[in-house]
């Protein structure tokens, strides 16, 4: 055990030098062994790109009403067709990607930070701190997320900031349990006892030992939060609590005009529906592959 504690130092030095190499190795391993995950990653990146540059890429405006071109089937002029107000569906889907990217990434970021903070503090310090925090987590988790969202929408108005904040909080607190159990499993490990016994301070232990074990589940949480957030927004749109117009969201398009004109213009639902499903699917597949590759329990078993 003493050897392990000492050998941490030189490894750290060599790690710093080989970080870009590690990235490269990781990517090549991904493409070689986890093909599905690789495809997922590529798809997700494509959507990310489209979302970021929607303003430039979209052929029409997001709200360009053209009453003369209502409900047209896909054509060269409008590859995804037009909706009941003559707006180009392809452009709206691109802007929808923009919102999904914003919501997905922001919520994932917020929720991951919250999960990490709560999970680590609760898991590492244990005892009374853990007890109290977990009771709050329990209380919070027993609230149906929907009602929290409705109440927030009512008190602070319906808007994208409120949705992001509330979703981040809800998903984050839920994810903290997973982080906590990862921390707890490490805490019991022998070499932490050892590190403590030689007087290592808590932050050092957290940084050196706990964090590396916690990062894999955090990464997985991050990717799954993106999908959850995008899906949650679509559910909210169905109930009328999603991101309000004029900005189009896939969920809003799907649950609004997509359902109303489902029989006269199926492309109104197919386009955003496929985008939504594809992105969430791709992200989840990528997240799965990531987890398979990062899970220390899986490493070395092949």
């Amino acid at each position, binding site marked *: 055990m003493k050897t392990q504690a000492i050998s941490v130092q030189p490894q750290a030095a060599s790690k710093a030098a080989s970080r870009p190499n590690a990235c490269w190795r990781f990517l090549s391993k991904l493409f070689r062994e986890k093909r599905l995950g690789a495809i997922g990653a590529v798809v997700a990146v494509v959507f990310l790109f489209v979302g970021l540059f929607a303003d430039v890429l979209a052929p029409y405006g997001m709200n360009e*009403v053209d009453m003369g071109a209502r409900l047209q089937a896909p054509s060269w002029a409008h590859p995804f067709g037009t909706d009941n107000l003559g707006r180009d569906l392809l452009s709206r889907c691109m802007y929808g990607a923009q919102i999904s990217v914003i919501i997905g990434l922001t919520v994932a970021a917020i929720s991951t930070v919250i999960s990490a903070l709560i999970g680590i503090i609760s898991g590492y310090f244990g005892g009374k701190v853990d007890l109290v925090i977990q009771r709050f987590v329990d209380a919070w988790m027993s609230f149906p997320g929907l009602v929290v969202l409705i109440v927030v929408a*009512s008190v602070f*108005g319906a808007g994208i900031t409120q949705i992001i904040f509330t979703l981040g909080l809800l998903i984050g607190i839920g994810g903290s349990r997973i982080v906590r159990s990862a921390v707890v499993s490490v805490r019991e490990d022998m070499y932490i006892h050892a590190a403590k016994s030689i007087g290592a301070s808590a932050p050092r232990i957290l940084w050196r030992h706990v964090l590396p074990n916690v990062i894999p589940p955090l990464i997985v949480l991050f990717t799954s939060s993106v999908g959850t957030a995008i899906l949650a927004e679509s559910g909210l749109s169905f109930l009328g609590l999603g991101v*309000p*117009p004029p900005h189009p969201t896939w969920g809003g398009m799907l649950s609004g005009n997509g*359902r109303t004109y*489902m*029989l*006269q213009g199926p492309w109104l639902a197919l386009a955003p529906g496929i985008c939504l499903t594809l992105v969430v699917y791709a992200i989840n597949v990528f997240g799965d592959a990531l987890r398979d590759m990062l899970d220390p329990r899986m490493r070395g078993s092949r």
Partner: protein
Amino acid sequence: MKLTAIAAVARLSVGLTLGAAAAAALAQEAPKYGGTLDVATTSTAVTTLSWDLADWQATLQTRDTGQFYEQLFSVDLTKAKSRGGKYSFTISGWQPTEAIRGELAETWNWTTPLTLEIKLRKGVKFPAKQGVMAERELVADDVVYSFNRMNTSAKRTQGYYDHVDKVEAKDKHTVVFTFNKFIADWDYRFGNGFFSGIMPKEVADAGAGNWKNVNGTGPFMLTNVAQGNSLTFSKNPVYWDKDVIGGKEYKLPFVDRVVHRVIKDETTQHAALRTGKLDILSSISAEAARELKKSSPDLKWNRWLTTTANRVALRVDTKPFTDVRVRRALNMAVNKQEIIDKYYGGEAEMFTFPMHPEYVGYHQPLKEQPASVQELFKYDPAKAKKLLAEAGYANGFSFKMQVCTCNPDQMELMPLVAAYLEGVGVKMEIVPMEYGAHLSAMTSHTNAAGYLTGIPDVNPTTSLRINFGKGQVYNAPMMDDAKFDARVAEANGERDEKKRQQILRELTTYVLDQAPAIWMPAPYRYTAWWPWVKNYGGEMFVGAGRFAPIHARIWIDQDLKKKMGY
């Protein structure tokens, strides 16, 4: 060759048979008893809130309690358009005077200008209800009791019955109302409005809020409540009313059961109608109607103009809307005709707020309005810009407009309106709000300069007052016009209906001209029902939110239903 000839003969004979059947149908086929009527009403998305009339909850109460609690007045359904009359009976807030028929009241007359004597029908019975009451006849005391109970309820609207001094039972079948002043909507307030149900004392004693106790003289009795899903009513075996079909008199109701379905989701409503799980779907959007006509061509249809038309209220007490020119300019800047043609696909019409075309005598069509009103409905951006410049806003201005997220149609329409306004340099910032918050902004008079709202379906006199009267609930434009208020009050006290209609027509023109709102077109909606629903032509209301007598007259042709495969 031969086959074709046979086929032709076969076709001919089928055609002749069908023709004969059709002729027979027109010649009033004999109604049959039995069956269940499944209905989704115009408010099918909302579940019942209270069974106790003393809770003073409008709309939903009369929808559901109206099946068993009857009122003094309803309408003569033989005057319906579908039976050759003039009226379509699709609005709930008001019934044409010449179509009024006494329901529990048989005759009524004014013995003095302020005393109304009502003679009740004889032989109207409350059915026996286990644990509540035995079968007995309706008497004048029941009317007196019901009125007093409403008037002393802790939840009543203060001042609603101030015009009534007292209500007494002169004898077993005569009720005397003593008024202290005449108001035009006296019959609406207690007669055929939202708070006019007649209930027996026994129900109140047993507990009026419990659905298991309710019992009235109406055609149907409440037998099951699946809160949030459906209400089941069964035939009242001792119901008093009769209908005449093909010269013969029939005891009502025909059907054994009526089920009111509570379905929030529109696609579920349409699917249920398509598969025959609903016999009548009362409120369908024009878009959905178009599609349903294709997928279920056998359905029968009735079109009606929505009773909750929209307006973008402009606060007349806030700059720049203090200037009438600005308000008129905004009206001219919006291409309302294009909205009707393109956005609503032709399924809408210009609406002269707040008078619905069915307010016969009170409504004056647009083409009869003075030129200055008509020009508000014509698209003229050049003139709009000129007016704005005259008012000092050549460079335009911006304002906030609050809209409710609960109405997706409004949410979609508003960016369109904003685009039109931008064409004259005016920027309308859309502020979406959640339902309760949105409503509250108006009722607490803290709404923004622009506020989108529908107007409620009430009677013509009340309509002008609550939408534009000072301090009134629906007065989102914050109009404060003392002369206007005085004239409305004058109309309210005017006994002569013709004179009253004249005053109200003038006032409507005045309000339209003043443009305290951007007047928006009102869309059509549809009612659909299956051919096996007979003796029905799409009528919806006999009084405020109430339609029990209509359902009582419907009979289900169960053989036809089976033949059609449902």
